[in-house]
């Protein structure tokens, strides 16, 4: 039985330019996993969380864009096309759960859209740089506990072009998407060539029992010149099981005093 809680997937990621990978997502996650040692490139160690440009820099395939004028020598997405910065990301992880446990695969932010493959099963992640994605993968986990995960990440729909003179926000096309807008360059910033495409925030799996806690909300009210306070707590709960769940929902507020002594 797996321990309840979150495991961050931030190690062992590989990446490859999508145009250089001739396998499908199903094939990538059901056959032999790719490796940087493969005689056929294109797989490289990836920065996850991070951007495609960060991965390319990590592998010294581009110069550091923030050093001197080196950004000028990096191909801009307006000239290369979106496919050039469309990348596969791949990793494997171990997770084996018992019958009444459930597992979610969580992405805290992807820029801009993606398709996720886990052990041959596909899930499409919708557009939007600033949104979380959570997929129930319980039924897709491999019985032996070894799981293969591949994610193809697409750049923003409107990466825009950078006018010869630069300017505030380039040609402003990026503003059509729900994405960071500085990436077309500003008066203080050169354009970011991949427009920050990538899995740019935490990836994790969470194991729960039949019932999951979602997005608790804490609010305080004060009275009597701050002598009295009330903490109001609301939470969402999801019963992921096919049975009625009799639950005991507990809240505890503590403050840490000296060392590890906890005062309730």
């Amino acid at each position, binding site marked *: 039985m797996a321990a*309840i*809680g979150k495991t961050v997937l931030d190690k062992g990621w590989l990446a490859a330019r999508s145009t250089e990978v001739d396998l499908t997502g199903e094939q990538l996650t059901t056959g032999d996993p790719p490796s940087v040692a493969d005689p056929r490139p294109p797989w490289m160690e990836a*920065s996850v969380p*991070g*951007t495609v440009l*960060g991965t390319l820099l990590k592998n010294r395939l581009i110069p550091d864009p*923030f050093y001197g004028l080196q950004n000028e020598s990096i191909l801009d997405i307006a000239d290369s096309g979106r496919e050039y910065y469309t990348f596969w990301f791949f990793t494997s992880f171990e997770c084996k759960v018992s019958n009444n446990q459930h597992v979610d695969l969580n992405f805290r*932010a992807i820029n801009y859209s993606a398709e996720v493959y886990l052990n041959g099963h596909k899930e499409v992640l919708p*557009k939007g740089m*600033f*949104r*979380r994605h959570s997929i129930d993968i319980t039924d897709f986990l491999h019985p032996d506990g070894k799981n293969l995960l591949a994610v193809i990440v697409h750049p923003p729909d409107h990466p825009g072009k950078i*006018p010869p003179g630069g300017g505030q*926000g380039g040609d*402003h*096309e990026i*503003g059509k*998407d*729900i994405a960071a*807008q*500085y990436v077309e360059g*500003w008066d203080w910033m050169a354009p970011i060539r991949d427009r920050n495409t990538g899995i740019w*925030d935490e990836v994790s799996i969470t194991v*729960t*029992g039949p*019932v999951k*806690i979602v*997005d608790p*909300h*804490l609010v*305080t*009210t*004060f*009275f009597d*010149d*701050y*002598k009295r*306070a*009330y*903490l*109001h*707590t*609301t*939470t969402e709960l*999801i*019963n992921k*099981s096919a*049975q*009625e*769940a*009799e*639950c*005991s*929902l*507990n*809240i*505890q*507020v*503590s*403050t840490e005093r000296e060392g590890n002594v906890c005062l309730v």
Partner: protein
Amino acid sequence: EHLDTLQISLSPGEHAQYTFPQLSFYKPILWWPNGMGKQSLYNVEITVNVKDYGESDTWSNHFGFRKIESTIDSSTGGRLFKVNGQPIFIRGGNWILSDGLLRLSKERYKADIKFHADMNFNMIRCWAGGLAERPDFYYYCDLYGLLVWQEFWITGDCDGRGDPVSNPDGPLDHDLFLFCARDTVKLLRNHPSLALWVGGNEQVPPSDINEALKNDLQLHPYFKDSSEG
């Protein structure tokens, strides 16, 4: 008195919302911005135990007792802030993100934000063209007492200005914008450093987005009667 338990029942597949009875605190140790006092933090832990299974899920988060108010001063047009009833002179820094390649490590966030605190700042403004900042950013703002002015993603790219002229109606997909905005609020709303949501940079969003944001972010009527007395 800072513990409570609810007995509830959930149908198969049910997605429900529950509110605990309010927990009472006498003389809570307040969270203060940098320069006004300590950044006292409590730990809130929620667990759900299921009959015949045991602990099913747990969630914990640090939490600061504070009340932040802001109003527009009619004589100057400036925004005035109060924290825990006390006026505060805002000394702020503008922020886009920690790194243009989004290598957003905890170490770098800690160094960046502590540096702002060491400069005697008490607010960071997250500019609309950059990031809705991450929980790690907010964690260190909580820890070092930096209030956060967080803007949504509306800039000169979305208002019909500029050369060439930008799309005058903001992002193409307004529903997607609002979905992302709501999800971001849920991600960040429990941080004591979060002081103010702002629609965009130097402008208001398209009217439908602006109205929806104002409506969703207004204080629930239940809390309007509370008074610091």
